């Protein structure tokens, strides 16, 4: 059955370099000496550590708990002993560290007790929670927690579920091999997702340079007897594997600026994610390993099933890195990021370890001035004008860059690829984006500080006022009391002479005097109340002393008889 396919704007056709790593099946990597598992591997909140150094962990035991509304758990990839929970270098260009769990494998690779769920009967909500705790995230590279995407839109059902097997980046073949070898299992994962999303149809998009994968998936679909699932071969053109681009090719829907694909009844998942969902639901196995392509400057490019946390140089050693290797790139040559070291761990986002050398990836030619040829705009799959965004990013005029929809850029690298002036456009866009984010953060923290400062001033003012009010109220109460007293005192003469014009309230002078009298009376009472302590059970001597003192005091304190 032929489907009408659509085209997305732009795109490029770089050399694919895929055949080298597809000659052999997926291999397992022997256990490394130690695993370093970063706790923060997915988009969203940082999972909190659940283990401490010295703990014994089983394979699949949760070591990082999901935290916050968008977060995904992390698990031990093998059984062993936790040696450390400390910051360690992460596979990111920045060379920053992140809290990681270091596990020394015991070699037994023993599974712990796994939670299971019956995905055929369980309600979708329960399945989502299960997948969150199983740490299933998008394996296409964006590592967005899958459970958060497995919610049907407002209508409660989805029109099309798109499964992304395009794998358009050069060198990377992990999805290709996965589809060839594990199509049937992957399909079960897809069926489960379809059930959760209530999707009408499922389209599996695979670039037509992977005929074996297409055939394998089609065979699996035929064998499963499922209807409404279709594997579609799409033209090979980078970046057909971008979510928006693939949706465009398969359904003709162009997701506009500021909208989500679910608004149009479409959701997109990677084939690797489908497989890990199958593993989680069928066997209760959390996401602890993934297929990783090792390619580039190695003797034997190949795909490996790698435990999360395995040091990359350990994986590359299996393929035999050539001696002139000078860098690892995580991802492909178009979108991949250069890594700060060789021993950074494989994480959930690692689809490919591209081994680089000066010969394979020569340093880019010097950047030349932009000649505004417009090649980048022709190649841009997001329909942007990269040369404008470049110009304003370069002059740090971020407002203008944003006006040209900088944030719709998917950083696919097509513009840099075609630029005749060798301008690293994507680097400029990344710089601009992070700069804009930083400014927004600064602005919101400044706004918060302003609010707090103003509130503090307001609070101090209020406290001052409250204090003053309290004092005033107290004074007023005393005055009232005094006034009442004096009223009571003058009550009888008032009744005797009702016709004399008597002021309703005593004069200010009177009030003051009365206040003073009241205060003195109060003081006297207080004084009288002060009784000497420890007066019981006194020895005769002490009692005598006290009596003497009292007598002396009485003699001195006797007031002279008032003469007035």
């Amino acid at each position, binding site marked *: 059955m032929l489907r009408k396919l659509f085209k997305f704007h732009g795109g490029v056709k770089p050399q694919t370099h895929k055949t080298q790593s597809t000659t052999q099946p997926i291999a397992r990597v022997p256990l490394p000496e130690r695993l370093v598992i970063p706790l923060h591997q997915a988009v969203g909140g940082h999972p909190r550590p659940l283990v401490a150094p010295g703990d014994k962990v089983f394979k699949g035991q949760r070591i990082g708990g999901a935290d916050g509304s968008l977060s995904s758990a992390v698990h031990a990839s093998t059984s062993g002993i936790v040696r450390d929970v400390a910051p360690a270098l992460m596979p990111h260009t920045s060379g920053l560290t992140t809290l990681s769990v270091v596990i020394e494998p015991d070699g037994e690779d023993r599974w712990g007790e796994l939670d299971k769920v019956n995905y055929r009967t369980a309600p979708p909500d329960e399945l989502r929670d299960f997948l969150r705790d199983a740490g299933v995230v998008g394996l296409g590279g964006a590592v967005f927690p899958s459970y958060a995407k497995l919610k049907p839109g407002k209508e409660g059902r989805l029109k099309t579920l798109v499964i992304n097997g395009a794998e358009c980046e050069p060198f990377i073949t992990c999805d290709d091999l996965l589809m060839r070898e594990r199509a049937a299992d992957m399909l079960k994962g897809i069926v489960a997702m379809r059930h959760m999303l209530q999707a009408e149809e499922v389209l599996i998009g695979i670039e037509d340079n992977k005929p074996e994968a297409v055939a394998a998936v089609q065979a699996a679909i035929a064998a499963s007897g499922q209807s409404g699932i279709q594997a579609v071969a799409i033209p090979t053109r980078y970046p057909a594997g971008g979510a928006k681009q693939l949706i465009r090719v398969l359904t003709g829907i162009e997701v506009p600026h500021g909208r989500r694909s679910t608004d149009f009844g479409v959701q997109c998942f990677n084939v690797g994610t489908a497989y890990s969902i199958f593993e989680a639901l069928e066997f209760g196995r959390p996401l602890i390993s993934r297929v990783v392509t090792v390619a580039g400057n190695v003797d034997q490019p190949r795909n490996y099933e790698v435990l999360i946390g395995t040091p990359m140089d350990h994986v590359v050693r299996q393929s035999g890195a050539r001696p002139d290797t000078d860098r690892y790139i995580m991802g492909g040559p178009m979108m991949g990021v250069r890594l700060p070291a060789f021993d950074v761990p494989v994480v959930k986002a690692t689809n490919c370890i591209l081994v680089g050398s000066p010969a394979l990836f020569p340093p880019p030619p010097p950047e030349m*001035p932009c000649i505004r040829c417009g090649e980048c705009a022709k190649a841009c799959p997001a329909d942007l004008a990269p040369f404008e965004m470049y*110009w*304003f990013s370069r002059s740090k*005029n971020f407002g*203008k860059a944003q006006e040209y929809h900088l944030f719709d850029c998917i950083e696919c690298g097509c513009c840099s690829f075609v630029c005749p002036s060798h301008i690293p456009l994507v680097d400029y866009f990344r710089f601009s984006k992070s700069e804009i984010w930083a400014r927004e953060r600064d602005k919101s923290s400044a706004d918060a500080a302003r609010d707090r400062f103003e509130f503090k001033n307001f609070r101090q003012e209020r406290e001052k006022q409250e204090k003053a009010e309290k004092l005033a109220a107290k004074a007023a109460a005393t005055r009232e009391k005094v006034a009442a007293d004096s009223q009571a005192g003058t009550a009888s003469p008032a009744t005797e002479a009702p016709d004399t014009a008597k002021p309703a309230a005593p004069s200010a002078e009177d009030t003051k005097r009365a206040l003073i009298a009241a205060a003195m009376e109060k003081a006297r009472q207080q004084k009288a109340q002060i009784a000497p302590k420890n007066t019981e059970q006194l020895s005769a001597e002490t009692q005598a002393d006290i009596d003497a003192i009292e007598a002396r005091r009485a003699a001195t304190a006797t007031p002279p008889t008032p003469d007035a």
Partner: protein
Amino acid sequence: MSSYLFVILGAVLVNNVVLVRILGLCPFMGVSKKLDAAMGMGAATTFVLTLGCGTSYLIDHYVLIPAGVEYLRTLAFIVIIAAIVQVTELVIQKTSPVMYQVLGIYLPLITTNCAVLGVPLLNVSLRHDLVESLLFGFGSSVGFSLALVLFAGIRERLDGADVPTPFKGTAIAMITGGLMSLAFMGFAGLDKYR
């Protein structure tokens, strides 16, 4: 009728007040760093200048000439324009605070803007009647806005260019302005089709 068109076209393009008559250079340099500010300045100047041309014509014809004190023209015009600018500022501040912020301190600058004084004086020396004065004022300010907006557009892009250090900032802006001026002088060729 076509003479009115010539007045406008002539004022906008052929005798562009900034680029050909070289008047009003301070806002041309000062308010041309941002496109939005340039547009706001253009709009404010258009309003002030059109109004100023009409008022100054009336004052000239019904007060100064009858009283025989034409030599007070410059003085009187300055006072009128200053007053109009002040009123405009107050109105804008009240009605559109955003616009007021965009224009910022450049609004009072219109007061001492030689283009705004020069155009009413030109009106007198060109012996324009009231309608022609208004059209000439409007055309000139549209020409002013055009030059300002074009220049601001160029300068926003100039920020990203590799300008040799000695030419950075105002120097390259001056050179750009000069080139634009040369280009606008080419409109003098329109005269052929009159």
